[in-house]
């Protein structure tokens, strides 16, 4: 008896400890008690969980750029981010924004995110304290997939083409200024690296990074850095503990799901929400359905006849020798194109792609077989990436030009003055 009770008590303690570990590893994670209340759909848990989901789902929230958004706006961001990641539960997506309802749904959403990918790792990477200088990573992918949805502008009247060109010009200037500030950063970084050559205690590194130089200049900042490192360590330890203990959390989440089903069985049998259709609509729908079936049948028959005719024709042609060489050449061309396309769309297929952050180190000796990634390699990878992006850009540009030419065809004598470099 006694042993069994101890085991039960142990299990009862294990859950809050697991959740506490999870909380500590999340940015501004709530207490285990909030999770417990959310299981019972208690309203007081909702605001905290909305906030947490917002922090987790919005990459810019880490820089405090968006924290002054109103709760409703934050909730909208959360919902659209969940939709864009394919979150399936409509109960969550239909819940009122930022209100006290639906804390259980919020808990489910959070655990869905946890279960589905390296969320914790991504969050830890985002807030990592940087001691060394790092290669700036291309952030286009992260921003495109996880950022705010692009604002969709509905215009009441047609937009003047000159305004569009004006806006495009602004973007172009913004882009050029971004490049020059990137160049400035590189120049200054190089100055620091040259100036602090031989200062680093680790011989392999040789020179100091910006953060290290700053520490020397201002002892105050080294205190801050120490604190940041300590809190990061704590989060890392918590994440490790969570990994050891998470099983019990998932078992508990099963009971949360059960609670969900027992309270509203109707929802579980109809996971997707069907649009409301009136009686009359149903009759019409039936007619449409019949029409559709008839059409499909007709189409199938027509396609069948076409196919037979075509096969007869091709069969005759296929016996000629020139036909088979043409077909072979075509096949090869298609294969080449396919390989090129795969290469351009799968950056991870390239083994030299810098997958994780690297410390930037300027070294004088160019010994072969050194550790780490060589600048030349990175440049090669980036050039390949650039080339494939340029190809895509050119494709899009020529598409746009064709469209513009079509539009401008209506205005004879119109001359386009292109921006420099285009």
């Amino acid at each position, binding site marked *: 008896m006694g042993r069994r009770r101890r085991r039960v008590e142990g299990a009862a303690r294990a859950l809050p400890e697991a959740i506490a570990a999870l909380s500590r590893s999340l940015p501004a994670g709530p207490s285990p008690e909030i999770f417990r209340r959310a299981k019972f759909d208690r309203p007081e848990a909702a605001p905290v969980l909305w906030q947490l989901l917002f922090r987790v789902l919005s990459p810019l929230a880490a820089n405090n750029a968006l924290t002054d958004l109103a709760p409703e706006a934050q909730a909208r961001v959360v919902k659209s981010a969940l939709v864009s990641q394919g979150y399936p539960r409509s109960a969550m997506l239909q819940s009122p924004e930022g209100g006290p309802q639906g804390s259980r749904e919020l808990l489910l959403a959070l655990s869905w995110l946890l279960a589905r990918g390296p969320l914790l790792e991504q969050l830890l990477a985002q807030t990592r304290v940087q001691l060394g200088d790092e290669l700036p990573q291309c952030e286009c992918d992260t921003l495109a997939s996880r950022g705010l949805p692009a604002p969709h502008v509905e215009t009441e009247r047609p937009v*003047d083409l*000159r*305004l569009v*060109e*004006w*806006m*495009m*010009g*602004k973007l*172009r*200037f*913004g882009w*050029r*200024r971004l*490049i*020059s*500030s990137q*160049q*400035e950063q590189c*120049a*200054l970084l190089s*100055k620091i690296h040259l100036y602090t050559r031989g200062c680093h205690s680790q011989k392999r590194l040789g020179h100091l990074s910006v953060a290290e130089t700053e520490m020397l200049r201002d002892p105050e900042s080294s205190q801050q850095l120490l604190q940041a490192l300590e809190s990061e360590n704590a989060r890392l330890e918590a994440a490790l503990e969570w990994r050891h203990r998470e099983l019990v959390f998932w078992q508990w989440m099963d009971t949360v799901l059960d609670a969900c089903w027992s309270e509203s069985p109707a929802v579980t049998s109809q996971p997707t929400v069907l649009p409301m259709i009136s009686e009359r609509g149903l009759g019409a729908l039936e007619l449409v359905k019949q029409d559709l079936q008839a059409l499909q049948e007709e189409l199938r028959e027509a396609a069948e006849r076409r196919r037979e005719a075509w096969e007869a024709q091709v069969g005759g042609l296929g016996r000629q020798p020139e036909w088979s060489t043409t077909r072979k050449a075509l096949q090869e061309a298609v294969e080449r194109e396919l390989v090129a396309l795969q290469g351009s769309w799968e950056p991870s297929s390239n083994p030299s792609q810098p997958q994780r952050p690297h410390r930037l180190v300027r070294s004088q000796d160019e010994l072969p077989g050194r550790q780490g990634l060589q600048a030349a390699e990175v440049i090669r990878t980036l050039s390949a990436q650039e080339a494939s992006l340029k190809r895509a850009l050119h494709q899009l540009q020529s598409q746009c030009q064709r469209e513009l030419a079509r539009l401008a065809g209506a205005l004879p004598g119109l*001359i386009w*003055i*292109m*921006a*420099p*470099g285009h």
Partner: protein
Amino acid sequence: MSIVTVQLGQCGNQIGFEVFDALFRDSHCSQGLCSKRENEAYQASCKERFFREEESGVPVARAVLVDMEPKVINQTLSKAGQSGRWKYGQHACFCQRQGSGNNWAYGYSVHGPKHEESIMNLIQKEVEKCDSLSGFFIIMSMAGGTGSGLGAFITQKLQDQYSSSLKMNQIIWPYGTGEVIVQNYNSILTLSHLYRSSDALLIHENDAVHKICAKQMNIKQISFRDLNQVLAHQLGSVFQPTYSEDGSFPYRRDPLGDLMEHLVPHPEFKMLGVRNIPQMSENSLAYSTFTWAGLLKHLRQMLISGAKMEEGINWQVRPPLSGLPPLGKMSVHKDLHLNTSVANLVILRGKDVQSADVEGFKDPALYTSWLEPVHAFSMWKTQRAFDKYEKSAALVSNSQLLVKPLDMIVGKAWNMFASKAYIHQYTRFGMEEEDFLDSFTLLEQVVASYGSLGP
């Protein structure tokens, strides 16, 4: 961020010197009327932008001097040396023994390719001395041979080599009654080539600057130096430091980039004009006081009436009341033509600048219908007084101001071209009639685009 200036030809070199001198003089002027800390930041900001430090401690202008004759460059170098306060770099000059004889084609097709490598090397050396490069000022005349022909060539090369850096050409528009017979040819060739390779053309009309010297400054015998000093004052009043976007300390880092983003994003509209107020001789200045309301009222009227200076403003020109169509009578009466803007930038410097009210510049009737004032108007300011003026205002305007003179030049050049006058002087150096035709087509499009801004 820094700006590298390329001074081209006689005109570019003489003006370039006056610009650097004015910038340096102003930033070291003791009458800044602001706190010591602010004055020091102002100096530092100006210095980062236009000068670099050398071991000797004397600031060196971030500039490259190019001319095909040694005379003007030698004069410029010695003038800078005499001042003893700043100087040009020791190896920042490129000159030859033979000019271009006012032939644009010679500058563009002969001197350009022949000396491309040396000139671009000089520029690259200067660029490498900047921690951060915002862009280039290219100072040149529009109608001569070396400055305009070689200038167009060099601008093209800068666009190829430094495509992400900004390029602003400071162009001197010739006197209407110029002494060079082919000045209209040279002008259309310069403008059309720059329209393809530069980001903004800041245009100074000799006629306008001459009038300012005569009427506002009361100069009896006007020399080139007088003209150039007025011009340098105008440029300084635009590009000396101003507060950053939120209207307070510290100073904005990249005024060239900010200016271009405000004024010239559209590739068809890149001609800028400068107006400034007040402008007077030092003697009169001592007995004058100004209010922001008065200065801005005059500046606004200069803008809408297309006046080139404060004196002789036409006060009859008025924008139509918002929402009402313009009076038929006004559009018939040519003198009352309202100068419509694409975009404007107002720069205010001096005492009590926080109290200045620029609402008058935000009237939608001043702008083309497709751009709202919130996008079309911007203002920079600083408490720091400029060049001994307790209060001063400058306006950089992308508007119809230059359509009329441009249309005239294109018309005159076309008449000459139609009778094939002097064409052989250009074709001799590898240009084709097709090049002229391309230039006419492009500039006529520019005239038409600016012309269609108004109601």
